[in-house]
């Protein structure tokens, strides 16, 4: 089997606030200061195969964006290894590293913040290809036109500035910008979350078309289960920095294993359900600053056992291509 497009092995990302001299002194004097560590991503194994669309779902702050950034190579991992088609990314140097980096591109959530307001569309889309020699100064205009057309934008508007476009169009500009460096892997971080349903549908369709047309691979990050369900082949569910469940999309929606996944699915309002009684996951999402010990979900879990608060459950295969991290599976 060919190596996966991207593979993460035990990848972690910590954000630390270390103490300076004054802080250490204060600590010695007994002041309640401490080094703060956020385990944004905590030992994640994940692989995405060529041509696959993997949906990454989880609630706010669970580390989805951080994971996406590491995959896209704009943030280094604190621990673990990231392989790109079997090659560890960190070992690459110079031009090769740059080439690999370009092959993964990211589409961002905020259509307003993700475009430099002071550049024209032509520059936003055309800057990187020119810089990386994918086109020359003479061919740049045509190149940009092509990219824009492919993202569903009229090239006539390339001399405009981002603020003159609507949200959906901006998202298309972002897509054109990413596609312009000819990637084969796109990380979409909440790429449609800020869009209205009707516009969201346009962009989702564009994604699907591009996938077919360019044989793209996606890591599709979203908190909207219905979007993920619609688009993905496989779903990965994160909770507080850890992957708790991973399975093909139908499997997840039909036979969710992890209690968190189950609650999540239950909490999502569905258009088919009229006047339904909303069910409730108890409790708040804990702070990643001091996550609960053991299984992160145990304080909110209806099935929590004593073991859950001490031991971290491992992600285990419970059915073919279906992995889950829950102690309940051991009991069964």
């Amino acid at each position: 089997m060919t190596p996966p497009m991207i593979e993460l092995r035990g990848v972690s990302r910590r954000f630390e606030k270390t103490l300076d001299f004054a802080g250490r002194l204060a600590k010695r004097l007994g002041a309640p200061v401490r080094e703060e560590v956020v385990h944004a991503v905590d030992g994640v194994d994940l692989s995405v195969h060529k041509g696959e669309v993997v949906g990454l779902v989880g609630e706010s702050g669970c580390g989805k964006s951080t994971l996406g950034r590491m995959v896209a190579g704009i943030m280094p991992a604190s621990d673990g290894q990231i392989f790109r088609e079997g090659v560890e990314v960190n070992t690459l140097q110079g031009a090769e590293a740059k080439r690999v980096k370009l092959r993964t591109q990211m589409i961002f959530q905020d259509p307003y913040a993700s475009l430099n307001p002071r550049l024209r569309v032509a520059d936003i889309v055309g800057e990187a290809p020119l810089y990386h020699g994918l086109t020359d100064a003479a061919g740049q205009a045509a190149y940009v036109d092509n990219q824009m057309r492919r993202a569903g934008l009229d090239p006539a508007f390339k001399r405009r500035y981002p603020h003159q476009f609507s949200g959906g169009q901006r998202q298309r500009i972002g897509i054109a910008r990413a596609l312009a460096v000819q990637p084969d892997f796109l990380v979409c971080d909440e790429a449609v979350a800020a869009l209205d349903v009707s516009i969201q549908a346009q962009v989702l369709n564009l994604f699907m078309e591009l996938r077919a047309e360019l044989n793209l691979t996606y890591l599709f990050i979203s908190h909207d289960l219905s979007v993920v369900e619609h688009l993905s082949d496989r779903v990965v569910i994160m909770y507080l920095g850890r992957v708790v469940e991973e399975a093909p999309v139908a499997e997840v929606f039909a036979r969710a294993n992890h209690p968190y996944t189950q609650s999540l699915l239950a909490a999502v309002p569905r258009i088919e359900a009229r006047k339904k009684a909303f069910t409730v996951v108890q409790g708040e999402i804990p702070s990643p600053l001091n996550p609960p010990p053991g299984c992160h979900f145990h304080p909110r879990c209806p099935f929590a056992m004593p073991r859950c608060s001490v031991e971290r459950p491992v992600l285990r295969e419970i059915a073919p291509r279906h992995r889950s991290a829950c102690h309940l599976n051991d009991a069964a």
Partner: protein
Amino acid sequence: MSAAAEPVTPEPVAPRVETPLRRFISQFMESRIAVGALVVFTIIVLLAVFAPWITPQNPYDLFQLDIMDGRMEPGTVGGAGFTYWLGTDDQGRDMLSGIIYGLRISLIVGAGSAFIAGIIGASLGMLAAYAGGKTDTVIMRLVDLQLSFPTILAALMILAFLGKGISNVVIALVIVEWAYYARTVRGSALVERRREYVEAAQCLALPTWRIIFVHLLPNCLPPLIVIGTIQVARAIALEATLSFLGLGVPITEPSLGLLIANGYEYMLSGKYWISFYPGIALLITIVSINLVGDHLRDVLNPRLQK
């Protein structure tokens, strides 16, 4: 079917291509006061630039001065044959020429110091924001140190140390002002840095310098421009105060502040014009700059934008 294949036409938001600059200009033009102030300020700058061709006298050339023409009232005809429309000072210096040349000095000092301080401050601020860590700490501690020290005292000490002279005044003002720029730029750079377009640029493997100067810096400019204008006005006023305190530009090349300080002693003796007209000129200059800066602040502040 394929909606993506047929390009979506953007709706005609504006009839013509609206650049940020044009939008900015049209918004700026909305305030009549600010436009008026800008016009006044432009006239002042032109006066200052073309001073040698406009003024009847070169007030810096001792040869053209005659103390026998000293302290003449406005409108007197002097020994050199032309009329002193705004009178003369104690050295027989034509006040009108003196004021126009003084404007020149004041503007050079104000704009020069703001410009240099802006460049230094902006570079350090960008560096602090982008490099972070120790660099950031060191630069910001320096900024704190500078800001925790009263401007006028610092300038006073520096000038006492460096001695008089236009360039020394500029140096002193740069030393006391760079920190404002550094802090402002760092603040906005930190905000801008977190925006996704910077991540996008990183993702596109663009080099760091390019991200800083092409992507980050232009977006940090608006607050910089605003404090720049305000600081020009402040620098002019500060220079005037320093000259008043006896430190500042050389006496033979008086700035507006020095002219005022000189004439100040004549206020009680009824020879108001020696101090009054330079005072008015200083006032108009600073007010017009401040008005422009003030409106710039409104126009460039995204939070107040409708």
